[in-house]
Structures are given as C-alpha cells and as structure tokens.
C-alpha cells in the first residue's frame, strides 16, 4: 500500500509536469496573440504589457519563469481579465462548479445504479426495456436540450426555481438535475452491463443452489463485482463533472469554472489556460488514485503495486 502510494505519487508528478509543458507550448503554437485587440495600442503600452507577462523574453526563458512561479504556488496573472490573478479566478468560480457537480453526481448515482440493477435483475422484461429506453433517451438528449426543457417546466411554468443565475440556495437544483440525468443514463447502462455479467456467472448458480434469497443474491453476491465498471467510470467522470460544463453554465448563466476552460482558450489567455489545465490534470490524477484503491477494495484479486 505504501509502495503503491509512493509510486502513484511519482507518476502523478510526471503526468502533471507533462501536461504543464505540453499546454505551455501548445497554447503558444496556436495562431493569435493575447495582446491583440481591435483597437491599435501604443507601442509603449504594448511593450510594457509584454514585459509584465514576460512575452518579450524567449520561449525557454518564459517557460523557466512560469515553472518557477508554479513551484512557488503562484498561478500568475490572467492576461485577459484585467488585474485578476488566476488563483482568484479559480477560487471564485470552482466552488460553484464543485457544488453543482457533486449534487449532479449524487443524483446520477441515486438514479443510475438502482435503475441499472433492477434492469439487470428483470432483464428482457418491460421493466428492463423501459429503464433502458429512458437511459438511451438521457444519453441522446444533449444538455442544451435537456436544460431548456427543465427551465421551461420548473423555472417558467411551475416557478419552483430560478431560470438561471447563482443567487439563491436552490439555484444548484436545475443545473445539477440536467447534468445528473445525463450521467445517470450512462451509469444505468454500465450498472446493467456489469450486473448482467456477474449474474450470469457460475457462482450465482451456486448461491441459488444454497438457497440464498434472490434479493440477497443481488446485494451480497452480485453487487460488489457488478459495480466495478461503474466505479472505474465514475472516478474520471468525477474530475470532469466537478470542474464545470461550458454548456450548462451558459444555459443557466452560472459563474462556474467550466466557461473559463473554453473562454481562456478562445481569448488566448495563456496563463489562465495553463492554470485551468494543470488544475484539471491534478484533479484527474488524484481521483484516479482513489478509484484504483476503491476497485482494489471491491475486487480482492486486484493487488495494489
């Protein structure tokens, strides 16, 4: 376990460092320039801006300076948000995405896993067919369709929630539901597949031959193995879902992190692209580490090395 932790930590450092380096050079490879504006700016102003962001220096020098500041825990200033620090942008917007993402995940698991289990147990019946049709619908309906539908029903018609914005304590509900339903559909299908595979194993027949009641066969004998694919999927999904979604944040007008991923890249905000990407990579590595531990706990054949 200790060896596993140490080796995964070393791997994590390599991965994050690689992401950092790749991102750093790739944003600079893209055509365009963060300081380009429609209005002409005075050469002196431009020079002082370039100086402020080290854009006057050579690429290796810029890289070394950025790396040094990251080691000091400084994510640098944003190139497009005037006078804002990247760390501040992230700490302002991430909690919004984190709240919505975690709630969406809870909704997704609470709907998806029971639906998948029931579909697998009642396979090829109307219960299974209707659950899987719903799941297919959930997968096929994109967020930009589901979102407005929920807004029209619960925001405008029933007036239970605000149609958008981030002001009241209940403002997470609709965006979380939109994301949650989509993820629930994936989880339901994965759960069904995993459970079906386990329920067809010989050891389930053994359990029946021992006189184990059907419900206990599902909960005691099948669920642990059947959920392994779901857990393996949920780990990486967790990183994506808690860092916000551009579409959801646009539909619900939320000050989340997801829009920064897209806008920073569009605006050529070199430093903010780097900061958000490194944050995502770190989160992903971290979450994968815990997923592996969880899978090893679920499956006794897996050894952590």
């Amino acid at each position, binding site marked *: 376990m200790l060896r596993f932790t140490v080796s995964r930590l070393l791997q994590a450092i390599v991965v994050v460092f690689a992401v950092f380096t790749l991102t750093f050079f790739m944003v600079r490879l893209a055509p365009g320039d963060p300081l380009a504006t429609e209005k002409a700016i005075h050469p002196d102003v431009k020079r002082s801006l370039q100086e402020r962001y080290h854009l006057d220096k050579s690429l290796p020098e810029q890289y070394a300076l950025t790396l040094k500041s990251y080691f000091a825990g400084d994510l640098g200033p944003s190139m497009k948000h005037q006078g804002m620090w990247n760390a501040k942008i992230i700490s302002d917007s991430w909690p919004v995405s984190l709240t919505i993402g975690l709630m969406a995940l809870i909704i997704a698991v609470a709907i998806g896993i029971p639906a998948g289990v029931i579909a697998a147990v009642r396979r090829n019946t109307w219960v299974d067919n209707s659950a899987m049709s719903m799941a297919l619908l959930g997968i096929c309906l994109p967020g930009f369709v589901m979102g407005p539908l929920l807004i029209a029903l619960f925001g405008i018609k029933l007036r239970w929630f605000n149609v958008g914005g981030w002001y009241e304590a209940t403002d997470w509900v609709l965006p979380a539901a939109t994301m949650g339903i989509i993820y629930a559909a994936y989880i339901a299908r994965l759960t069904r597949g995993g459970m079906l595979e386990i329920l067809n*194993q*010989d*050891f389930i*027949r*053994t*359990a*029946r*031959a*021992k*006189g*184990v*009641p059907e419900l*206990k066969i599902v909960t*005691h*004998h099948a669920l*642990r*193995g059947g959920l392994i694919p779901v857990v393996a999927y949920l780990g990486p999904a967790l990183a994506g879902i808690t860092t916000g979604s551009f579409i959801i944040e646009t539909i619900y007008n939320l000050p989340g992190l997801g829009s920064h991923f897209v806008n920073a890249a569009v605006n050529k905000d070199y430093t903010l692209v780097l900061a958000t990407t490194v944050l995502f990579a770190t989160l992903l590595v971290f979450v994968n580490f815990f997923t592996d531990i969880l899978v090893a706990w*679920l*499956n*006794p*054949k897996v050894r952590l090395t």
Partner: protein
Amino acid sequence: MPLLDVQNLRVAFHTRNGVVRAVTGVSLSVEKGQTVGIVGESGSGKSVTCYSMLGLIPMPPGRIEGGTANFDGVDLLKMSRAELRAIRGRRISMIFQDPMTSLNPYMRVGDQVMEPLRIHEGLCKAEALPKAIAALAEVGIKNPEERVRQYPHEFSGGMRQRVMIAMSMITRPELLIADEPTTALDVTIQKQVLDLIKERQRALGSAVILITHDLAVVSEVCDYVNVMYAGRLVESAPVGELFRNPRHAYTRSLMRSIPALQPKGGTLYTIPGMPPDLAKLGPGCAFRVRNAENGYLCLTDRDPEIIEIAPGHRVQNCPGCLERGNA
C-alpha cells in the same frame, strides 16, 4: 419409499430456434444413502434433469412440462419458490463442475461456507464460524482458521472443490447432487475428491446423485446407473449388472469408448456422429443414425418404450439397439 422418486419428468426450453426438449419422460429414483449415477454425453439432459427439480433452470425460457419429483414424499415440482429455496442448500445440496468459477471471487471463503447455516438455521456469524472452520478441517484443508479469511483465488482448483464439498455438506443434506465434480480437475486430484465425497457421504448418511460422463468414475462409486441420451433414459441398472450385461447399443458404445479398455497403439474407438439437435428431434429412436451395430433396425415411427428386462434393469425397447450386432 425412495428418498427421491422422479416420474416421467419433461422439461423443454422455448427458444427462438424452436422448442428444445431437453428432458423427455425421465424416471429415476434414489434410495437413502445410495449413490446413483447419471451418465451421458454433453447435452444429453443429465444436468437439466437435476437442475429443473430444484428450480434452478431459467424460467422462461425453460418450462417443466410434466412429471413428478417426490422428495421424501413431497413433490418438488409443485412447491412454491420459497418452499424450494428452503430445501435447496439444506436438505438437497449441489456441487458443480468448475470449482474455479463456482465460488464467489468477491467473498471470503468462510463467509461462503457458513452461508447455508446462516440462511437455513439462522445462525449468526459468531455461531457459524466455528462450524465453518470444522467443516473445512473435515475436508482436509490445513489451517482452516486462517483459510476462512482468504478469498477463492488463494486456493488451488482441488482445494476449491474441497471448499465446495464442505459448503454443500455443512447442513448435513439428505441428498447431494454432484454435477461432474471431477471433470475440471487433474487426474491425481480427481481420485482424492471422489474419495472425499464418498467419505463425507458415509459420515453423514447422505444419498448422492453423481452426474458424469466418465464411466470409470461410475463403476467406482455408484450403486445404480442411469444412462441418458438425447433427453431420455436409454438404460438404467445396478452398476454391476450394467457393466456385465449392457443391453442398449448406446451403453455398449459408451463402454467401448473407454480408452483404458482399448488395445494400446490402436485408433481409439469413438461413437460416430454427434448427438442430435434436440430442437429438431422427430419420433423414433434418437440413436438410430449413430448406431453402428444395426441402426437400420431401429424404430422410426414411434419412440421406444422403457421395459424392465431384469429386476431393476430397464432399457429402451428398440430392436436395432437391443439386438447385439457384429460391428
């Protein structure tokens, strides 16, 4: 009264490719403490016969279409699911062919061994654990106190089959159904496992139904043998009688196929052809096309009936199969 008395059992699977008549009119009985063999090729219906009595075939597509299976005077086929469940694992236990896949890889061995006690006798974990340890010790597993905490993948194939035996016998069942218990094991382990089953059977006084395609195993451990082919019983007799005086052409062909009884260096004898597709089986003797002796004499218009030709020795009455040919 026999412990288990099956009469005229018929089981069919209704699939997209037609109705598969897996078991057709099978009758067999098992006395207390007796060992009864069911022999046949793969797909002859030997497993389905046993599984269907215990409600272990998937329904649908499976369906029990007729017959009775009186266990200790009560018809298993008329029981509710809950009643059957109360018998499975308590009064009738099973062990299966492949010990590598028949134990749950996600559960500790001890939890699996004590599960029948916890379900059927309502014991708590603390009460059941010493019994599980004792049961593992009885089947020859060393350090059972430590082994109960391990998972199946930490056991070898032979050891897992010992665990299966311990688990199935822990409730002292009156009947043990062993479905090819040695097929997936090394030859050296096969003998040990068979001896162990016999030893546990003697200690508990249980009856055993041994499903196998290995006639050598049958001759060694069974008191009575049923030979199945294409979902029907073709011949059944006490073991000595059957080996001395096999009357049906299929039984004789099976015996000729035993490698150890054939001359060294020669080509091994095999029964020509394949077992018939049970979804397309018409009337007549199902062994007709494979009967190398004198299949041209076999019944074609009606199914052969079972007749008793000697006390306890029953056989399908088909002229082509009963007539000893010269092939």
